[in-house]
């Protein structure tokens, strides 16, 4: 039997190169060797990423000189050349996530950008290789300490994958040096799924924007430095990775976590979590106009619709519906941090009061102003800190089972639903031209049947619904309510994930 000899495509490519080009490539990879001191198998993978990118450019007819300029080794910095030494204690909000996670449920959220052209995988991989060094807290792996988990720096090639699973699935963080986020691509979409220990929506968006900008630069889009984007070659500053909770002034009263159980939407909980993702792509101007007609903010307006849609999706006749609204603490305490720096509040209304969106929007606005105020958030933050201090000398082996039990018992029962609004995202004009829209998908809770999130880019506001039940009542009612208010809506999403 003849033995098959594997052909190295890069060697084949090199055979077609001129002597001058071979010389350039040799110099290029000699420089690569100086910048990469990873273990041999990781180094090999990283080198192959460069080779694939060079071959892609060659196929596209780009000269080798231009290709190597785009792939300049200096973008690797010293990240792959130095051994890992840094470690990061989890911030106050992140501490709960590894304590309460299970094999089937983990606090994962997803941010995605839709480009106008299909994603080129070798270039996305190179964009990640260059971007990761700018985010030292992302280049980490989750570790167990005796009292708390922590993030330990890991030096490896962080990989991108083609999307082929249900969104927001638990990330395998158990292996030595495993990633705590995943970068996925599918057609024209780049998605990043983050384990919440790393970052919150704002921090995640900073990463996605930086990654997308780097990807677009590699595809040939160029723009002068812009202050809305992180420069991947800049040196990371301590303030960008601080536990910002620590800088909030202490004292005052503590309150916030406990509340009455809220009404849950009806519909059998699905085995697959989530069982469907629905994106309502809204005309941003129309949405703003509809909110203005009600004299409310976009968040308050959407909350009013969610309450009405929620009522249509439950069989309960009495009780209180409650929607959790994450609050970005950066607006009260300006910080550059890309780690978690958010608290939340709950907007509550009795079911009997939910007659129409017009009738409740005023009350929602008032509750938002009161409950998402600096004072209220500071009280919740004090409560969080008190709890962290109380538990800090309790061994993890004791804390973890108790936390799982408490989380399983209390869990998300005090809320019916969630609305996380990331606001309006901007990119420099040259990059924005190549982007269609963005979306933000929350991971699943325990009993809440739906979780909602909103992000606006360009003229499109994407309202994403993460579903835990096959019952379509909620999204259908939302769709009807938005259409009735004159907002242009287009529905996209996943198929129903059924066994």
């Amino acid at each position, binding site marked *: 039997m003849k033995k098959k000899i594997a052909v190295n495509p890069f060697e084949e490519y090199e055979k077609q190169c001129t002597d001058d080009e071979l010389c350039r490539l040799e110099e290029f990879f000699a420089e690569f060797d100086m910048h990469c001191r990873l273990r041999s198998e990781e180094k090999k993978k990283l080198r192959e990423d460069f080779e694939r990118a060079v071959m892609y450019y060659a196929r596209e007819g780009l000269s080798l000189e231009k290709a190597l300029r785009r792939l300049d080794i200096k973008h690797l910095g010293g990240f792959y050349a130095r051994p890992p030494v840094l470690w990061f204690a989890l911030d106050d909000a992140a501490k709960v996530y590894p304590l309460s996670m*299970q094999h089937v449920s983990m606090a994962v959220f997803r941010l995605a950008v839709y480009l106008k052209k299909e994603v080129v995988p070798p270039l996305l991989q190179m964009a990640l290789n260059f971007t990761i060094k700018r985010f030292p807290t992302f280049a980490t792996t989750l570790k167990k300490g005796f009292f708390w988990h922590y993030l330990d720096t890991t030096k490896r090639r962080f990989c991108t994958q083609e999307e082929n*699973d249900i969104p927001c699935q638990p990330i395998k963080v158990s292996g*030595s040096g495993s990633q705590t986020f995943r970068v996925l691509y599918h057609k024209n979409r780049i998605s990043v799924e983050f384990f919440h220990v790393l970052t919150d929506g704002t921090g995640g968006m900073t990463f996605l924007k930086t990654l997308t900008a780097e990807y677009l630069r590699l595809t040939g889009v160029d723009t002068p430095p812009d202050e809305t984007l992180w420069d991947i070659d800049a040196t990371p500053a301590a303030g960008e990775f601080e536990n910002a909770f620590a800088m909030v002034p202490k004292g005052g009263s503590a309150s916030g976590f406990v509340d009455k159980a809220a009404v849950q939407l009806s519909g059998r909980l699905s085995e697959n979590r989530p069982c469907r993702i629905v994106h309502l792509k809204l005309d941003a101007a129309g949405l703003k106009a509809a909110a203005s007609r009600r004299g409310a903010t976009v968040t308050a307006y959407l909350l009013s619709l969610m309450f009405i849609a929620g009522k249509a999706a439950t069989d309960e006749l009495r009780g209180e519906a409650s929607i959790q609204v994450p609050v970005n603490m950066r607006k009260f305490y300006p910080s550059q941090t890309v780690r978690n720096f958010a608290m939340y509040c709950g907007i509550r209304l009795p079911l009997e009061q939910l007659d129409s969106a017009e009738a409740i929007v005023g009350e929602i606005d008032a509750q938002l102003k009161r409950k998402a105020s600096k004072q209220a958030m500071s009280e919740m933050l004090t409560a969080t800190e008190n709890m962290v201090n109380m538990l800090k000398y309790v061994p993890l082996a004791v804390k973890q089972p108790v936390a799982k039990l408490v989380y399983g018992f209390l869990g998300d029962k005090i809320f019916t639903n969630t609305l996380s609004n990331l606001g309006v995202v901007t990119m420099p004009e040259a990059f924005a031209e190549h982007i269609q829209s963005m979306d933000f998908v929350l991971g699943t809770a325990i009993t809440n049947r739906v979780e909602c999130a909103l992000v606006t880019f360009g003229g499109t506001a994407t309202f994403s619904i993460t579903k835990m039940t096959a019952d379509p009542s909620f999204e259908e009612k939302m769709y009807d309510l938005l259409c009735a208010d004159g907002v242009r809506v287009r529905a996209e999403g996943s*198929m129903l994930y059924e066994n």
Partner: protein
Amino acid sequence: MKIEVTYPAVPKRRLRRRRLKSAAGWLLLFAAYICPIVNMVTGGKAWSVIVLISLYMVWMLLLSTDLVEYNRISQFTRLIFCACALLAAIDVFISSGWAIEVVPIVCFSGLTVAGILFFTDFEKQKQNMLPMLLLIFMAMGASVVGLCLWHEESRWALAVMGAFALALLVACAVTLGSEFKRELRRRFHTK
């Protein structure tokens, strides 16, 4: 409302695997529920305790594996902890008098294997030290307590286990040098 599908199809295999794992979990739970009942009905020695510990071992080592730091050292130390608990339970509930010698020997062997696993893949495994450190500390603690409380001839196994644990700790500290201190600082931080 018509939804345009923009996500890829998910292979059924993945979905089925999750279901299978869940089914196995329920089967174990059922066995754990039924065994003590059968034991109580039939009478005799408390063999169901041994079955329960064994089921817990299967659950922990195969179905509910570590979510953080799942590696060869952590799995092996888990196995050693469970095996020691199982041996102690057999001694207490089925036939007694031998565990005080056997458990330290098993623990000693466990420390030896953990040491080999650690030092043969040092660069990678130095990130996975905590389970081995805990095994070392527990062996040392158990050795001291055992030697103080147990005054029979069979104390030698406890002494060997304690001495070997201390030797392994020193070997780790010497090999890791300043990194050992840093490792301890991050592993035992309270921030």
